[in-house]
């Protein structure tokens, strides 16, 4: 029997190659944009944390600052570990990324450990939030204590990510309890993941004569209901929209409820734009580009989603925002609907022009929205100008969508 340890060098080499290739996938421009995004987010967090930290130091001393900073860093590490837990749990249930692992002469635990490593990589996204808070404490805490806190954060992130993958495996094994007696539980788990794509049939479709845009819309609707990455993206906007509606059922003062509902509506619109990009990412490039259709039907079919979503958000506010006065409700509806349409259109445009690289489109969307948000916080309404400029700028590429190469 081949022990799991004997494959460690091979996996180390594989991981080194994977990391290098994944980094190479980001061209210089994209790396620059990601660095800019990191600076914007870091700057925003610094902006938010510096003043409270300074106040804390004046009132309660540096120890209180260190305590709060430690708590924040711990929360970031815990949030990152939660991401790892979700990702690893999902990949163990759905499918194993990479080659036909089980056909290779590897111990199941080596494969499972590699999958766990893949999942733990996502903890890095959470780690990107820490520098903003650490920088905000510079000058308020001794340098050695900041270094100590940064080190403790790195260790906590590493440890919690490992705990998260272990919990995901335990949970996946737990779900399988009661079935056939496994000889090797990890092997059974991996085999189950491979079987997850079970053969199934769908209801026979009705063939109708419809305009091209409606044909595209119906196809998108089917994809949104089937187990695609687009459907996975649809969960967040639905949950956020429900949360934004639910705010009106809480015993809150109307101005606070309006603020929370508006924030919920905006995030629901942003995540819906991500869903639209994921939907565009489902399009096989070779099929779409060889079809005799221009940009208009594609744009219209995706914009129909945006309008529908804006209508849902507005309807929710109309029916539930009863505590608001008529004028205040009108203002909320106008702002919320306009924002939902603008953000949705941004998703449509990025999806159409960058759909062949949905990950890049998602990053562009995040970058634009982050800059808009930061601009809005610094100078009121500036964010809207940034957002509308981005919508217009991205629209200019749409007519050339079929000519843009991957």
């Amino acid at each position, binding site marked *: 029997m081949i022990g799991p340890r004997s494959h460690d060098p091979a996996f180390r080499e594989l991981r080194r190659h994977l990391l290098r290739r994944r980094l190479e996938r980001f061209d210089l421009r994209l790396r620059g944009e990601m660095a800019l995004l990191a600076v914007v987010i870091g700057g925003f967090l610094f902006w938010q944390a510096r003043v409270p930290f300074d106040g804390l130091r004046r009132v309660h001393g540096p120890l209180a600052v260190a305590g709060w900073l430690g708590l924040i860093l711990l929360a970031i590490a815990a949030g990152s570990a939660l991401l790892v837990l979700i990702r690893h749990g999902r990949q163990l249930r759905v499918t194993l990324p990479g080659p036909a692992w089980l056909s290779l002469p590897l111990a199941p635990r080596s494969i499972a450990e590699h999958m766990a490593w893949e999942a733990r990589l996502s903890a890095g996204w959470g780690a990107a939030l820490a520098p903003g808070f650490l920088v905000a404490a510079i000058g308020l805490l001794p340098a050695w204590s900041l270094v100590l806190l940064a080190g403790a954060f790195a260790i906590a992130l590493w440890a919690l990510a490992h705990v998260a993958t272990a919990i995901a495996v335990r949970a996946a094994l737990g779900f399988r309890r009661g079935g056939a007696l496994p000889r090797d539980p990890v092997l059974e788990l991996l085999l189950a993941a491979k079987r997850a794509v079970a053969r*199934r049939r769908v209801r026979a*479709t009705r063939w109708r004569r419809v305009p091209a845009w409606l044909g595209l819309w119906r196809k998108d609707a089917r994809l949104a209901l089937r187990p695609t990455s687009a459907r996975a993206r649809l969960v967040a906007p639905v949950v956020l929209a429900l949360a934004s509606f639910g705010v009106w059922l809480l015993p809150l003062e109307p101005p606070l409820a309006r603020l929370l509902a508006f924030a919920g509506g905006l995030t629901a619109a942003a995540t819906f734009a991500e869903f639209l990009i994921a939907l565009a990412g489902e399009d096989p490039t070779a099929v779409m580009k060889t079809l005799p259709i221009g940009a208009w039907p594609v744009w219209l079919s995706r914009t129909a989603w945006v309008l529908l979503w804006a209508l849902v958000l507005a309807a929710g506010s109309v029916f539930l925002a009863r505590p608001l006065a008529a004028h205040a409700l009108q203002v909320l509806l106008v702002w919320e609907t306009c924002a939902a349409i603008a953000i949705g259109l941004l998703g449509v445009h990025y999806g159409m022009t960058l759909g062949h690289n949905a990950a890049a489109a998602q990053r562009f969307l995040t970058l634009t929205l982050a800059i808009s948000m930061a601009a809005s916080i610094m100078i009121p309404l500036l964010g809207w100008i940034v957002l509308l400029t981005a919508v217009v700028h991205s629209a200019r590429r749409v007519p050339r969508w079929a000519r843009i190469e991957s």
Partner: protein
Amino acid sequence: MMEVAGVTRSYGALKALDAVSFRVDAGEIVGLLGANGAGKSTLIRTAAGLQAPDAGAVHIAGVDLWADPIPAKQRVGYVSEEPAFYEELSADEYLSFLVAVRALDPGPARERVAQLAGRLGLSDRMNEPVRQFSHGMRKKLSFLSAVLHRPAVLLCDEALEGFDAEAALAAKDELRGLAREGCAVLFSSHVTETIERLCDRAVLLHRGRVARLLMRTDWGSTPAEISPLERAFLDVIRSER
């Protein structure tokens, strides 16, 4: 008919196509032969509208593909070497989507799909998500979706690769039938026997250039349509029905 006029395409320093010119007349099946990396797929992808040429033009039934893409693409069918689909849609749903965007009459289109699916051996899998299809079945579905609208120009990139013998025969029959109706077929393959059996002419690509244009008379006798091994295979398949 299709005309490729001085098409040049580079990938960085590599010149994949260098001033390639030839034409495929209506009713003709022209083979596209070449070694790996000769530029066959680049040429077919350029002619299908998937990547723009650096220079030159592609005319589909007199329409410049890159100047007036929509009317040109209305007349083109494309069988991809590595077909991609909406993995979660069933073959039936995928084809009904193509029928909608190509503005075909759903009734006759559905009949044609049923007939072609039967001949290609896909009938009982039409309501399954494409994700569950084998490589051969994906190729069959790509073929079916390319010929569904009876295109004026059909571009086939290793179209029959992965087909079983019976489906390959049916597909070749369909190609000949389309050619008889006036379709211009450009058939890329690295299997010379298939080109010998099927094509009227052949274009030999070498390092991105047209090395030779061959007529059917140039390759002499055509091999038998069905080899003894294929005959035995078909006998077994058909005896089980």
